[in-house]
């Protein structure tokens, strides 16, 4: 006891004298210049990045990979220089300038991420068979993966891997800054499925009121997906998802119970067996994205349909060709999926308007127009013309 009594004051004395009147000297860190070396290989690109991202939006566009910036549990590789350059230009044109056109540069200057980090490869998750497309960390950093797979001539692929992901992650940053209405969370209560969302077909989840399978994982992802899909999907694609959302879907099994392995076989139509009407041959399954990176429906012989008009013409043809006709699967889930998705979009629309003073539809128009009219050569020339 005695020993302890004396030792404590000694420690207290230490705490009083420690660092008491030290004056701060010069920094122990070497001074680092923020200018780009004119002799460097990446001088023009780095200068363009500084002028267009750092100086305007206070954003660091990190394309030279440092693995400490990423999750060390994954094996990842850097982006190629050429793809990083192109994605940088497109990010500026399709995301930052789209917002700037709508509401000025200050909005993204205030709320945009501070770091945009590019990674060349996917981040595979062997346990779930999924891969990470993007991450938003603390409202400060957005990480994009798979940059080395970029297909410049395919806007659907660009959206799937990068721009929908950017709008999705930015959606998270915005709602982490100012919450979205809690009524959004109540719309699909009890229907979120964190463990097996990845095994569900888009047609099925749409009929449950989700814009994508990932949206059905949890409510905040649902909200971010609602924003990102509304902004980036074309009218045709959005219409097709809403068409799917208004239909009934079947696993093709007697009890219609979901078996995750059978997710691909969710079908909307069936052809009855003439000898035994109870036997049904299901067809018309949905696909979140095929090799064209578009939502589609797949017909009896593997035919692909990307618009409502295409699928309706196909169903009409099938109905006339099959002697017993074709029949729609009964919609038994008691949810009006189409109405639910539109309701979620409306909540997002009002939240943008009331919380951020942004016009969700006007912003979508700008994003859609820019998606169609970007000229990568002209954008590259901006870098080439840097002095």
């Amino acid at each position, binding site marked *: 006891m*005695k*020993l302890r009594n*004396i*030792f404590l004051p*000694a*420690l207290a*004395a*230490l705490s009083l*004298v*420690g*660092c008491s009147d*030290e004056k701060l*000297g010069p920094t*122990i*860190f*070497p001074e680092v210049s923020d200018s780009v*070396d004119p*002799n*460097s*290989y*990446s001088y023009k690109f780095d200068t363009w990045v500084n002028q267009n991202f750092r100086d305007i939006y206070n954003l660091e566009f990190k*394309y*030279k*990979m*440092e*693995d*400490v910036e990423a999750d*060390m549990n*994954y*094996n*990842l*590789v*850097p*982006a*190629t*220089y050429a*793809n*990083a350059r192109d994605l940088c230009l497109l990010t500026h044109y399709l995301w930052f300038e789209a917002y700037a056109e709508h509401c000025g540069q200050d909005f993204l200057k205030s709320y945009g991420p501070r770091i945009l980090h590019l990674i*060349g*490869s*996917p*981040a*595979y*998750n*062997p346990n779930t068979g999924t891969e990470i497309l993007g991450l938003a960390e603390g409202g400060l950093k957005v990480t994009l993966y798979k940059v*080395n797979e970029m297909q410049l001539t395919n806007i659907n692929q660009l959206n799937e891997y990068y721009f929908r992901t950017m709008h999705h992650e930015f959606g998270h940053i915005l709602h982490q800054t100012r919450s979205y209405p809690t009524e959004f969370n109540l719309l699909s209560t009890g229907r979120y499925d964190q463990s097996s969302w990845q095994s569900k077909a888009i047609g099925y989840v749409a009929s449950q009121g989700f814009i994508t399978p990932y949206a059905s994982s949890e409510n905040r992802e649902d909200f971010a997906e609602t924003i990102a899909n509304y902004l980036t999907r074309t009218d045709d694609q959005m219409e097709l998802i809403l068409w799917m959302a208004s239909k009934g879907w079947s696993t093709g099994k007697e009890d219609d119970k979901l078996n995750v392995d059978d997710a691909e076989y969710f079908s909307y139509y069936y052809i009855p067996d003439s000898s035994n009407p109870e036997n049904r041959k299901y067809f018309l399954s949905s696909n979140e994205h095929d090799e064209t990176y578009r939502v589609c429906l797949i017909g009896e012989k593997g035919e692909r349909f990307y618009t409502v008009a295409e699928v309706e013409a196909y169903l009409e043809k099938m109905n006339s060709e099959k002697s017993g006709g074709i029949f729609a699967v009964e919609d038994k889930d008691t949810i009006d999926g189409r109405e639910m998705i539109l309701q979620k979009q409306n909540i997002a629309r009002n939240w943008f308007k009331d919380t951020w003073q942004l016009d969700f539809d006007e912003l979508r128009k700008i994003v859609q127009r820019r998606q169609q009219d970007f000229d990568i050569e002209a954008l590259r020339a901006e870098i080439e013309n840097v002095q």
Partner: protein
Amino acid sequence: MKKIYIPFLAAAALSFSACNSDDSGIFDSSAAERLEQSRNEYKDLLTADGGLWALEYFTNDEEPGYVMVMQFGNNGAVEVSADHKWIGNKFQQETSLWDVISDNGTVLTFNTYNTLFHIFSTPENIVGSDAPKNEYGEDINELGYGHEGDYEFLLMSHDTEGNVRLVGKKHGKEAWLRKLDSSVDPKDYLDAIKAKRAIFSSKFPDFVLTEHSGATYTVNNLATGIPTIFPRDFNGVEADPVTQTVSAHGVLTDKGFRFREPLEIKRADDSTFEIEELLWQEDGSLSCRAATITGPTPKDALVRTTLSWTLDPESLTGSLAEAYKKANDALVAYSASTGGYSSITLSYASFMGAITPVMTFNVGKRVCRDYVTLDFASDEDLTLSILSSTDASKRYDELVPEYKAFKDALMQSFKVSKASVLDPSQLTFTAADGGSVTFNVK
């Protein structure tokens, strides 16, 4: 009281030293400044004199090492030259970016993707027959791992001979940068290594490692880059090839064979010694301070009953060349339609119930065999003699005396030598009168 003073003194000592920012007694500058200094030193080192280096690089535990040539520019670009199986065994060059950063120490990073180099770091599955397998031969490729190669390296040390030791930051595998003269052409450099790899004939996958004490070890699969080594003769002590076999990853370089980490080799008596890098010697062997690697001796090669050797007529010199020409001319003169020798081989066949060396003289389509005895006075000293001849051979002996004369010329004592110390696939038999002939393994 004594118990009380001890903590008092300790506390007093602590209070004097606490928060003392002046560490100039140990270092002249702050930790950050020293890191920056180290960063600049390594940048200067890597870009000096043309910035050309050979990277000796290792990935996962299933693969050998690889050599690539890196040219570090002081503009932040690096030109990678490579010629490995994952890019189709074809020489290619590609430029990307590099830097030396301060991270967990001083770190060399290849920070934009380079197809030739980062292929070893992608998480995509390894495809084809190289996909990793378990002990039952089942594919255990799991998406997310790939080759598990690093592209960020801790710069550990460098020496005056131009070697920089690196350790991969994520996977921890060692790598080396070896300084190259600025005049070196990367393609020539990598081609030279390829040529050295070609020395390792697939017919002779086993080599002999000899300790200076005379103890010998069998080295298998050196050419694959993942050799196994076990003692085969150690002063009469019987070795156990199961428990005493060691295996290691290495890479064939222009200087020799470098092991990924120092390899501890077990002697037959279970004592050990270490080798890290074997260097090419003038005689074509690989050697380090502790041991030398050579290929099988001519005797080892010639007694392998599964192999077949072909006489190279172009190689014949002196008396043997004359005898061969006379015999061939005489055979053509005897029968223009049959012609001369189509080939002469040395192989093994069953004779009187035993596997026996046989010399086969193919004259046109006719096959004449002579079973022979290979009598070795040493690993290189051989005497050939006829054991028995087939009827066809005997007939030619009688009908074409020059044919017999050439056969007799081959039945004598020879000094047998290898074209390469490591590779016995080409053996030259030299007679006492200087005449010689070369046999190539089929």
